[in-house]
């Protein structure tokens, strides 16, 4: 009876907690509930128990997502909240005014040489800004129907043709077999391909946990993004991966 003992909350309060857990408090109740919660922080534990009861009956068991997902989400959030990062200064700004006055009377050859150097610097500057700009990279996410929990991502810089390949949870293979990354091209693309329209891009080294992180150089076709039809991973004979005999275990979607 003693009111000071914080035992069972009253039925009114319990029903209100149920309403909160169900997400259906009306405006007046919301104000009252907030006041009660501030007055007695221990109510939070009651809310958690009520939530637990609802989920025991109606929610499936929790499943821990793969650990890379958290960092992917945090990175995506950072990109969204700082969209300015990808804007780069206009290229023309970096063209330095040539000192025509001083050059007057100089040989035409010197002018041409100077312009050529200037032009070269400009190109370097352009390349540098493109390399730093995240929006300039191409990302290929490979999916799988067959291997539970596996993921693979290829991020390509089309200017430098440097790429990173991140693979998780691909089952390690028996000796004599390797995973191979293929670039599959659109029909008629002006590149040398095998009979499956593919270019062998990299042989993967997957560790005992089925993970790999490799940097690689990709074929020039990535400079014409529209000619890349698919990116896929197959299992091949380690002695002759170029035969391309395996079906894709992971592939980008259409």
């Amino acid at each position, binding site marked *: 009876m003693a009111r000071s003992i914080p035992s069972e909350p009253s039925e009114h309060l319990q*029903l209100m907690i149920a309403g909160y857990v169900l*997400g259906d408090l009306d405006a007046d109740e919301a104000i009252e509930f907030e006041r009660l919660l501030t007055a007695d922080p221990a109510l939070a534990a009651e809310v958690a128990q009520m939530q637990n009861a609802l989920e025991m*009956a109606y929610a499936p068991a929790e499943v821990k997502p793969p650990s890379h997902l958290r960092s992917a989400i945090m990175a995506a959030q950072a990109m969204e909240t700082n969209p300015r990062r990808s804007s780069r200064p206009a290229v023309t700004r970096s063209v330095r005014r040539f000192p025509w006055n001083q050059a007057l009377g100089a040989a035409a050859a010197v002018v041409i040489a100077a312009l050529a150097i200037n032009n070269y610097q400009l190109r370097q500057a352009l390349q540098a800004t493109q390399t730093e700009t995240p929006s300039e990279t191409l990302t290929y996410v490979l999916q799988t129907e067959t291997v*539970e929990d596996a993921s693979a991502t290829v991020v390509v810089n089309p200017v430098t043709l440097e790429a990173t390949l991140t693979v998780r949870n691909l089952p390690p293979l028996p000796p004599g077999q390797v995973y191979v990354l293929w670039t599959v091209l659109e029909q008629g693309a002006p590149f040398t391909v095998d009979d499956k329209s593919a270019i062998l891009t990299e042989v993967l080294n997957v560790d005992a946990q089925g993970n790999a992180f490799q940097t690689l150089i990709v074929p020039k076709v990535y400079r014409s993004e529209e000619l890349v039809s698919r990116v896929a991973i197959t299992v091949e004979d380690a002695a002759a991966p170029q035969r391309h005999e395996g079906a894709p275990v992971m592939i980008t979607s259409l």
Partner: protein
Amino acid sequence: MHSEQSGSTEESLSSQTDAEVYQSLRAGRAEALGVLYDRHAGLVYGLAFKVLSNPQEAEDLTQDIFLNLVRSSAYDPKRGSLRTFLAILTRSRAIDRVRSRNTALSSLERWKSGNSQETDSNTPLEYVFQGERSEEVRIALAQLSESQQQILKMAYYDGFSQSEIAERLEIPLGTVKARARRGLLKLRQTLTNYME
């Protein structure tokens, strides 16, 4: 040095309630999202995976759901718990994805076979986890009236608002509200012994 700083702010956030952490997120504290993710990613991913049965799609949806917390202010922390909001949103988005996947598949199949016969491969969209429920939960649910069970299911599974439920079942709004709350309270009381 940067990580040390964000470590300590995450620590202070982690002692707060969901509603408080969510307010911090809305106020622009980016690390609040990490705290909410750590608390609820298992629920969101588990639900997404259950409905979609594909890890890549489940990851994709989980990412959408959490980024959505940053983008939209659809959740009102005064009216209800974040977990219920997340669960209802995840389930309904996952079902949308299965539907559009099925539509794409069946139109592809029709196109392939050259006629428009209906496919009967409807996935059980209304997935009930009956087989996975423990004996205790089944006993506890059996103590609820049918109407209470139906209303709880419509609210938590189908994401119907109370007024939508009232309309569909043709019963007064006040009755819907009372039955849902009494039903859940009953569940909690019966299950208390198993929730130590």
